[in-house]
């Protein structure tokens, strides 16, 4: 079987919004509006057909053994060299073996397809076994016409062979006609195009069907046997007619990608074909055809092997990675369609010594360095003497490729001084994974993205163009590895150690698995007992989970101790210390049920539940807390329950234990705060051994622990700053539960306690939670209870929780208003005639109006009947704003400052008063 063994694509990341072209040139050529949808791909200033071809080939070779390639074909109508084999440069860039057939294919936009057929023929004949075919184009267009809009820049690549074929070659049919819809003479820069209507009528609509129907007939197929037809045509409307002529339905026609990248010349047939291949199933037949002085049409049948291909960007991946710009002038400058003054500093000698380039061909084009066989140091460049100061061996290095290795930024800068067409010029020192580094140009990135430690990947790019001599030289530059950045941005637990009690099944098991998947080392504790705690001493559940983790490539160790004893708790933590040296995260998850209505609740059932849930948490948390305090980091999660928070019939023991854990958390959070130990509580709703036959099976199925674990893992992460919080989680629903304490009232006075009747009369107010708040600790709660209360009508809405305890009511703001006239600037108030009413709420508040007229300012207590504008604030906020602690914008946008009336006039305040100190 001969066919395609792999595929790859490259579409430049930069995309030009077509509307920006219209906006710039629509005044001159309004008709271009009709094609101004979406974006066209555009080469970065240092990209061309050759660099794109290399990138597409790299994508294609992912997971392949490139040393097996014995043929390399490169197709383009925009080669950088008319005479210097371009395919040979690709061979050098990919560091392919010397004994390889290489050839350039050019002359028409079907050259890419022709190269594929040539490759197929070479393999089928037995002359070659593995051929790489790359096609790329970066076509030049004059501004303000359709082609600038229709064309894009891009590349595609395929490998052809006999082994592990993913799409079997079924056959081809070619027609050759000297039909000149457009041409570009050897010395010209731009295509010359003939009438589009004629090109469609006499060209596309006749020649495509001729070739494709010829193919179908040869293969004894009809259009309905084919899943997809991939053939480029810039006239989108023509597809309908061509489809009809080949007997295909619209759904079978692959989209020509106009909206997302545009037509990429001779690469486009491959690109469209690859986009179909990515979504194809084994058994699908895909036809690829390319128009250009005739037409090459060929068919492939997808095989099962396609499911085994290593991941690659392909067309979909490249399209998704994009940066859209609307700076049309950038397009024009980068393509030399306008030539700005570069200044004298840019005049630098640019001669390239061919003899040096040949001696260092692998280094410059292939980014091949060395690895010392004596000390093992990878290094770039490879020199006669090893770079390691402690080694210094002579001629001891073997070739070592860097081009596909990940690197990280060690130092960098954005240089506004260097001559650049995309300032600032970015470069820095990159350090390769595995060793080796060099000072490197960065490309295709913004200065704001760069930081030390950013993962980078290497790209083959233009280094300079020697215009005088017509020589382009290439080298490798670094660009941010965005998929890897996304990977690394995930919440990770690398280097962290977690202990999870009761992790043999249910919630605990999922916590353990998920943490391990993200790099955490896990101690899986489980006694192995049944739901009521009986039986047990069964090692299997914990060990099974450990085995599962290890199979995923993670690290875990089992522990079988009972949480409910001091020795047990210490042993569990000791396992963590002995195995991994520390503890960072503790999830107290172990628990049992002994449900009985209260009267039937025997002492041993009451005690057993409290022992496991509450005392177990104490026995395990205590030794863990000591370690966390020492290291200044800890994340502790208690498992509570709705039963504890709200109550549940028949579960007094369980409810008491689960609520007691909240009590433990409330104080532990205070004791742990200054050591960055965060303690939170989870009330999960999930299916587990605990709830197995309590819930109906169909609801049980929806209550997967996987819906609870994301929140728990977040609480366990370094990023999570919450502490002392309770969360309900389950089935995809998440909320926070908290205690709200009502404002309360004061009754009686120091000499006279209130009577029972007083209490009864004021019962509603005592119970009122309106305006209640969260309180951080007991002291804060006492203070809050004992501070004077605000009269009911003026109460502000419920506040966000006060972080460090906070009493109510603020200090009086009257001094601020008394002092206002002293800060008034009469010179700045010429012609001003306004009255601003301030209504300050809170016990320290009041009403004042500030009148400014005839360059004088008066402040009067009370309410003005017709103020220009009214400003409302609480006393605390007013104090904070006037002392510069509260930013007025924040106050306004958060609703703390409310302005009514002529808002615009309040701008005078800034002019006529001195700013806050």
């Amino acid at each position, binding site marked *: 079987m001969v066919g395609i063994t792999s595929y790859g694509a490259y579409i430049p990341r930069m995309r030009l919004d077509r509307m920006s072209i219209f906006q710039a040139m629509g005044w001159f050529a309004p008709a271009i509006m009709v094609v101004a949808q979406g974006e066209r791909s555009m080469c970065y200033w240092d990209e061309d057909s050759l660099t794109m071809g290399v990138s597409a080939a790299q994508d294609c070779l992912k997971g392949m053994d490139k040393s097996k390639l014995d043929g390399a074909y490169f197709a383009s109508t925009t080669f950088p060299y008319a005479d210097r084999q371009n395919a040979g440069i690709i061979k050098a860039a990919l560091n392919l073996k010397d004994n390889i057939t290489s050839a350039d294919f050019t002359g028409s936009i079907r050259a890419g397809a022709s190269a594929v057929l040539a490759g197929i023929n070479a393999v089928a004949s037995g002359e070659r076994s593995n051929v790489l075919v790359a096609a790329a184009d970066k076509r030049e267009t004059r501004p303000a016409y359709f082609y600038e809009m229709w064309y894009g820049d891009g590349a595609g690549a395929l490998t052809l062979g006999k082994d592990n074929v993913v799409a079997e070659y079924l056959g081809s049919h070619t027609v050759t006609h000297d039909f000149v819809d457009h041409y570009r003479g050897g010395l010209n820069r731009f295509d010359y195009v003939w009438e589009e209507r004629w090109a469609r009528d006499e060209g596309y609509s006749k020649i495509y069907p001729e070739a494709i129907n010829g193919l179908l007939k040869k293969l004894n197929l009809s259009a309905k046997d084919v899943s997809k037809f991939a053939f480029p045509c810039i006239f989108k409307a023509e597809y309908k007619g061509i489809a009809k002529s080949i007997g295909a339905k619209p759904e079978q026609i692959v989209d020509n990608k106009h909206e997302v990248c545009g037509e990429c010349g001779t690469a486009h047939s491959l690109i469209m074909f690859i986009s179909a291949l990515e979504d194809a199933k084994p058994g699908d037949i895909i036809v690829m055809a390319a128009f250009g002085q005739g037409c090459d049409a060929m068919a492939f049948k997808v095989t099962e092997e396609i499911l085994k291909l290593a991941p690659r960007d392909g067309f979909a991946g490249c399209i998704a990675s994009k940066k859209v710009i609307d700076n049309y002038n950038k397009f024009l400058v980068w393509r030399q369609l306008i030539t700005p003054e570069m200044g004298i500093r840019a005049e630098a000698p640019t001669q390239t010594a061919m003899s040096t380039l040949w001696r260092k061909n692998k280094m410059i084009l292939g980014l091949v360095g060395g690895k010392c066989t004596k000390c093992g140091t990878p290094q770039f460049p490879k020199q006669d003497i090893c770079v390691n100061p402690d080694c210094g061996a002579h001629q001891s290095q073997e070739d070592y490729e860097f081009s596909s290795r990940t690197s990280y930024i060690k130092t960098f800068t954005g240089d506004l001084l260097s001559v650049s067409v995309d300032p600032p010029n970015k470069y820095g020192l990159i350090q390769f994974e595995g060793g080796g580094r060099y000072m490197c140009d960065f490309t295709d990135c913004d200065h704001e993205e760069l930081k030390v430690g950013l993962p980078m990947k290497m790209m083959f790019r233009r280094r300079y163009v020697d215009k005088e001599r017509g020589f382009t030289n290439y080298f490798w530059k670094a660009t941010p590895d965005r998929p890897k950045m996304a990977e690394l941005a995930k919440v990770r637990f690398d280097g962290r150690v977690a202990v999870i009690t009761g992790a043999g099944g249910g919630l605990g098991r999922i916590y353990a698995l998920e943490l391990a998947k993200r790099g955490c080392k896990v101690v899986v504790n489980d006694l192995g007992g049944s739901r009521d705690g009986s039986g047990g001493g069964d090692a299997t559940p914990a060990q099974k989970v450990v085995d599962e983790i290890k199979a995923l490539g993670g690290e875990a160790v089992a522990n079988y101790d009972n949480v409910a004893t001091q020795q047990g708790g210490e042993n569990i933590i000791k396992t963590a210390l002995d195995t991994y040296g520390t503890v960072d995260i503790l999830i107290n998850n172990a628990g049992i049920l002994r449900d009985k209505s209260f009267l039937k609740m025997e002492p041993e059932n009451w005690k057993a539940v409290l022992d496991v849930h509450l005392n177990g948490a104490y026995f395990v948390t205590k030794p863990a807390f000591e370690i966390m305090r020492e290291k200044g980091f800890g994340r502790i999660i208690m498992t509570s329950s709705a039963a504890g928070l709200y109550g549940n019939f028949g579960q007094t023991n369980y409810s008491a234990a689960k609520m007691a854990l909240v009590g433990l958390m409330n104080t532990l959070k205070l004791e742990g705060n200054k050591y960055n130990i965060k303690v939170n509580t989870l009330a999960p709703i999930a299916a587990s051994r605990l709830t197995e036959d309590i819930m109906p099976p169909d609801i049980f199925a929806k209550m997967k622990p996987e819906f609870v674990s994301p929140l728990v893992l977040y609480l366990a992460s370094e990023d999570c700053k919450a502490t002392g919080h309770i969360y309900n989680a389950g089935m995809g629903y998440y909320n926070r539960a908290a205690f709200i304490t009502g404002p309360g009232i004061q009754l009686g006075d120091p000499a006279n306690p209130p009577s029972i009747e007083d209490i009864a009369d004021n019962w509603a107010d005592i119970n009122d939670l309106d305006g209640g708040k969260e309180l951080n600790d007991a002291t804060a709660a006492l203070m809050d209870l004992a501070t004077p209360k605000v009269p009911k009508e003026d109460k502000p809405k419920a506040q966000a929780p006060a972080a460090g305890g906070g009493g109510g009511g603020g200090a009086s703001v009257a001094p601020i208003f008394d002092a206002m006239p002293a800060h008034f600037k009469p*010179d*700045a108030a010429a012609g001003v005639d306004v009255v601003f009413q301030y209504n300050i709420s809170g016990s320290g508040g009041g009403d004042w109006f500030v009148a400014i007229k005839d360059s004088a300012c008066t402040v009067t207590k009370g309410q003005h009947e017709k103020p220009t504008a009214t400003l409302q604030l609480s006393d605390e906020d007013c104090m904070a704003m006037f002392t510069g602690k509260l*930013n*007025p*914008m*924040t*106050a*306004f*946008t958060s609703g703390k400052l409310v*302005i009514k009336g002529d*808002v*615009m006039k*309040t*701008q005078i*305040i*800034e*002019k006529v008063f001195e*700013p806050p100190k």
Partner: protein
Amino acid sequence: MGFCSKAPCNRALFTMLGITIFMNTSMEEVIAFKCCALPDQNLEIHLHNTGKEALSIKSRFVLDDGPKPLTITAVYPPTGIKLAPGQTAAIYTSMDERVWEQYRSIRFEEQGGIFHSFAINTNKG
């Protein structure tokens, strides 16, 4: 504190900017020498972000309270000034001192349209 100057924006937005003026600055010689195409930049103005929000100030200003409002756009650096909270950056321009002294107010504008006015030449009559 700055306010929104755009008509449809009917709420006040508050950001904090401060300025310091250096007329006939000693920086003129150095800028002319080190940035060779920029001679005569004798007026230096420091823009301070005294608030808690990042600021983006346009490279231009308007002189007010004088003969007639004067807009200066030939300001270096020309790409606008971005200021993190607490940060200060300088702009430079060429300004005839006699013209400058005729004005009593200067106004800077943020990218979003919010403007900030300051008194200048307060020691002159």
